[in-house]
């Protein structure tokens, strides 16, 4: 199974189409606040863009830190989130090495589903789904 990769951030125009797609198609929300991918400048719009994404760990620390079984290792990289099992403890946010997990207004973590919708919609091919090579 493939995982999300940032292929060429230099092509990013900051349109947020990826975030809007994640919010819309995965979280069924209008707001980019509900997006697992975060596109941000490195400090003002005069700087370059950066995309903070779930790196698709094959041995995910967030799943390791989850005591309720809400986050389980996904084959090929990343995790699968089972909302019904989540106790909203927030341990996963601290465990994530690249610090991309945030909590939504209800206290649930916003977890990348590795579905590739953001990569599909990106008009500049900044994002791509690729096989996880392993570490």
């Amino acid at each position, binding site marked *: 199974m493939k995982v999300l990769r940032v292929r060429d951030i*230099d092509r990013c125009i900051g349109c*947020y189409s990826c975030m*809007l797609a994640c919010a*819309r198609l995965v979280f*069924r929300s209008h707001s980019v*606040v509900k997006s697992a991918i975060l596109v941000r400048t490195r400090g003002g719009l005069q700087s370059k863009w950066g995309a903070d994404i779930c790196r698709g760990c094959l041995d995910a620390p967030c799943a390791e830190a989850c005591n309720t079984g809400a986050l389980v290792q996904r084959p090929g990289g990343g995790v699968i989130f089972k909302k019904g099992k989540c106790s909203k403890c927030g341990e996963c946010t601290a465990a994530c090495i690249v610090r991309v997990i945030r909590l*939504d*207004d209800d206290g649930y973590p916003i977890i990348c589903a590795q579905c590739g919708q953001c990569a599909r*919609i990106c008009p500049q091919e900044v994002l791509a789904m690729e096989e996880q090579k392993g570490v």
Partner: protein
Amino acid sequence: MFEGDFLRVLNIDLSAGTFCVTERPDLKPLLGGVGIAAKLMLETAAWDKAPLDPEQPVIFAVGPLSGIFPLATKVAAVFRSPLTGEWGESYAGLRGALAMRFAGYDAVVIKGRAARPAYLRIDRNGVLFRDARGLWGLDVEETGRLLREFEPGRGHRSTWRIGPAGENLVYLAGVNVDTFRHFGRLGLGAVFGSKNLKAVVVDGTKTYPIRDPKAYNAAYEAVYREVVGKPRMAKYHQIGTAENVMRLNETGSLPTMNLQAGRFSAAREISGETFGEKSLTRILACTGCPVGCIHIGIHRRRHPEGFGYVSSSLAYDYEPIYSLGPMLGLDSTDKIYALLAVIEAMGLDAISTGVTLAWATEALKRGVIGEKETLSPLEFGEEKGYVTAVRHLASPPNAFYRDLAKGLAHAASRYGGEDFALTLGGHEMAGYHTGYGFLLGHTVGARHSHLCNGGYLFDMKHGADFDDAALIEYLIAEEEWRNVLNSLVVCLFARGVYTPEASARALGSIGIPTTPEELNAAGRKVFRLKWEVKRKLDYSLDSVRIPKRYFETPSGTGRLEPERFERLLQLYRKRLAEELGGSQ
């Protein structure tokens, strides 16, 4: 509009330091954007007070599609313009619409005057009134840098600020939005200054669940497919709006050296193509726009003392290139950047500044004014004198610059040279000497902009051979329809995508059932509301005066005759009276 069957209006009183939110179901038929802003203007304007009186409102509004549909990226601003004394309307993109939408406000009305320099933080919890004393006097860029440090909200925050020009109540001052976009026109910067308001930071973090994902996703992706990779939109991404330099030059529609000519001998050197080849470093998009038309160039120059190079980033578009390049005879990208850099830092409107300096240059040459007034030599093609003049314009050191700071129409009425002072309806002209459509459209449009009704597009399509009545019908119908687009609020570059049918489909998918006919009716209603405001501010088309220069220098569709223009104007007035259902 996602919080109930009403629109949410945030009312802010700077004098009292208070705010309240009102829920307005009655505003819904006006959609949003300029439609509701016009209604709120009618409710809140102080008709007998000057434009810079603290009691005057500044109104910002977004629309039902803002932040949730491709290219619905603009915020509408409505105010009483200090420049024209009447209807003030301006738009800015980048992150403003998203931030306002998800802060939870369809409109924000700001009245009063802060006791000392202030800035506002607007978010889901309301308003925080912040002390801006240490920011007052800072240029646009430094102000933006500090506000980004002070205010959380990275990624969903928009920063609107003025520079010294706005603080000094210069009528040509705009409000900068997120470094690269502007509420540029008609003097909103001076209105901010008059309120002791240095900046507004909006942070949008609310979330709204999608009610009907199937319908909404289908509508969203239908629009998305129409704008990505289609030739119609590609031009905005590739060369950008600056593509117009060569197109307008070819037809002799490019106002040059204060419109003494319609072609610029150095057009190639300052064209969009040249700007791209020599300086383009990256392209940005407004939030939610997959096209991306914001072209950022690098202004690289020798270190002032010769130690290597220094550089900065500036956004270029057709309009500033026109007003600072051909209009002032600046024949290289470096010269235009040098002047644009100081205009941006001071927080001035590039179009109005360029057109005003073009008049001053010709007036100086003709002896209408002297160097005693201008303090620096102004000569077409020489950027150094202009750089000094722009600093003077932002912080006037003498009576002449104080007059110039009140706009070109005012300055020319004081010093002379009105025949070549290129304002239409009191507003410095946009860069399209294309023919009668532009001249009439810019003059009669509610905000005296080429964008009110796209008259220049009529010229480009029909040339010199057109029927008078057809032009009048086009201008009115186009302005009415653009009122709808500006109420939704979508970028006008997407006007070919957001047809009446497509707009109705988009609205239907988010629970606002409507028809193309209903939308057209809303556009007409907004047209009338704007004219109601204009009339209350004593504006009428009776007092129209067109500078002779427009009839001397041939347009892109040939020489224009004052007699035919007068006939067109009379015809427009007659149709306007019918449209408004009264005398005009």
